[in-house]
């Protein structure tokens, strides 16, 4: 197997799983870790397991509605997870508050070489966390699908079912607010873009 290709075409696997449902296990196997990482970052490890389980249950139930022309399977799963995270606003805000205070789990792997950078950013950590918690949910979703999941504008458009241009405007608005919180310009002085979504 060449690992440079996405192993099999998972959209095809998903389609086949309509007839042979056990094929869905390959979807779980391929995407579990990535989806879990994203959910655990946003909601913390304790709540993540429920939400990730729910994500794959939802995906399985709705697999007949999956439209490969709109989003890849990976982006589609991120979309489902993002919608479920949206129902856990209090958990997300609590997680952000903890991240602002303590930073990520100090036992998380390695990265000694990043410690210096981390220390320098340390003082801005609470402001950044507060600014993230203060974003409108739809702006935060787009921002984190870019920053944490690494999805493209097109993938986010398909995953969340919003127009391509809306992805950009939500991302810009979120980034501007974060820059302001980190000591950049005051967002109130910049013209507000209209959200076309």
């Amino acid at each position, binding site marked *: 197997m060449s690992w440079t290709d996405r192993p099999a075409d998972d959209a095809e696997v998903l389609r086949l799983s309509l007839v042979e449902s056990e094929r869905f296990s390959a979807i779980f*196997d391929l995407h579990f870790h*990535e989806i879990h990482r994203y959910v655990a970052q946003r909601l913390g490890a304790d709540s993540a397991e429920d939400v990730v389980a729910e994500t794959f249950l939802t995906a399985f139930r709705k697999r007949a509605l999956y439209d490969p022309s709109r989003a890849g399977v990976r982006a589609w799963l991120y979309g489902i997870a993002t919608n479920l995270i949206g129902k856990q606003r209090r958990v997300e805000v609590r997680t952000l508050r903890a991240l602002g205070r303590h930073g990520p789990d100090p036992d998380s792997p390695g990265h000694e070489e990043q410690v210096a950078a981390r220390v320098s950013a340390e003082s801005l950590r609470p402001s950044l966390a507060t600014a993230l918690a203060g974003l409108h949910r739809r702006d935060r979703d787009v921002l984190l699908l870019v920053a944490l999941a690494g999805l493209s504008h097109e993938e986010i458009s398909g995953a969340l079912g919003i127009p391509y241009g809306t992805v950009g405007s939500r991302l810009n608005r979120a980034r501007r607010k974060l820059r302001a919180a980190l000591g950049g310009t005051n967002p109130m002085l910049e013209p507000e873009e209209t959200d076309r979504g």
Partner: protein
Amino acid sequence: MDELEKVRELYGEPRPDPFLKARVFGRLQAEPRRRRWLPWTVALTGLATAMTVVVIVAVLVPTTTANRAPEISGRSVLLAAATQAEADPATTGAYWRVKKSHRRTHPEPLGKGQNRYRVVESWLTEQWATEDGRIWAGSRTLGARPGSAADSEAWRRDGSPSEWAGVAPSWSSSGGETLSSSPGEGLLKPVTGRTAFSVAGRDMTFEQIRELPADPAALKDRISSMVRGAPRGSDSGVLADALSGLLWSKPSSPEVRAAAYRALAELPNVRYLGTARDERGRKGAAFSFTVRTSPTAPALVQRTLIIDVASSRVLSSTDAGGPGEEEVEVVLEAGWTDDKPAPPSLP
């Protein structure tokens, strides 16, 4: 650093957990009202065997979930393995050989700018030792590749490099080599200036291994006395580590292996996790304990051993929580042989 990088840094990486996937999977299975929607969950257990040598996702998949398995104590599983170990005939040969495959996340993030990613290295090792103290070390790289799907994306954006100039493989002590995605040739080198084995951080010769007591309590006392004086009093984990090493990486007699199993069965820090499969799809019983892998290591790692009770063999050992995220060793061969030392062949 722009605000997106600051956001990534704020969130950090979740703690690695080798049993996470199995746990979530168990949760899916444990939902009775949803059972009818989930015929696919039964198929997942077979998946590990179908995967190729290099496994991108962790595949420790319990074949039973906790709430359906009959209550089995870890102690009884280890005692059963002890009985089996004792019944093994004492074997011998010209060479003691241990061959393993290894997998570990390279400690260094690679790539440039926005395109940072981690790679997972895989390699083979094969140790040969004679009773008169001669040692050979074999190794063979299987190549490095991006870890998660997100890492693959970043690697692609970074131009899909197949070599990383200036970055050495993390497992090779010789340095100078370049980290590469390509498998390499097998190498074999004689090793001098040290004993073939170490237990609890102490050098051990064949003779000393042979003289270990075959009574579980006496064996535990003997190993404990070697552990005491180990730095940072890292006691119980080192004891479990040293005892479990006697099960597979050392030429212990059948009696000593049985005693090591019995001593492990009495250790309070050794937890039974249930049935699991190793990365080659072999089924066994999983046990775990935490251990400080070196006196200077900043963090404890959680070590998980998968044991085939029917043969009393150790199948694999996984360390989670260390600087390399997750480190997996799968035992391919462990025992006496009359084969001659040779560079490791592909499994």
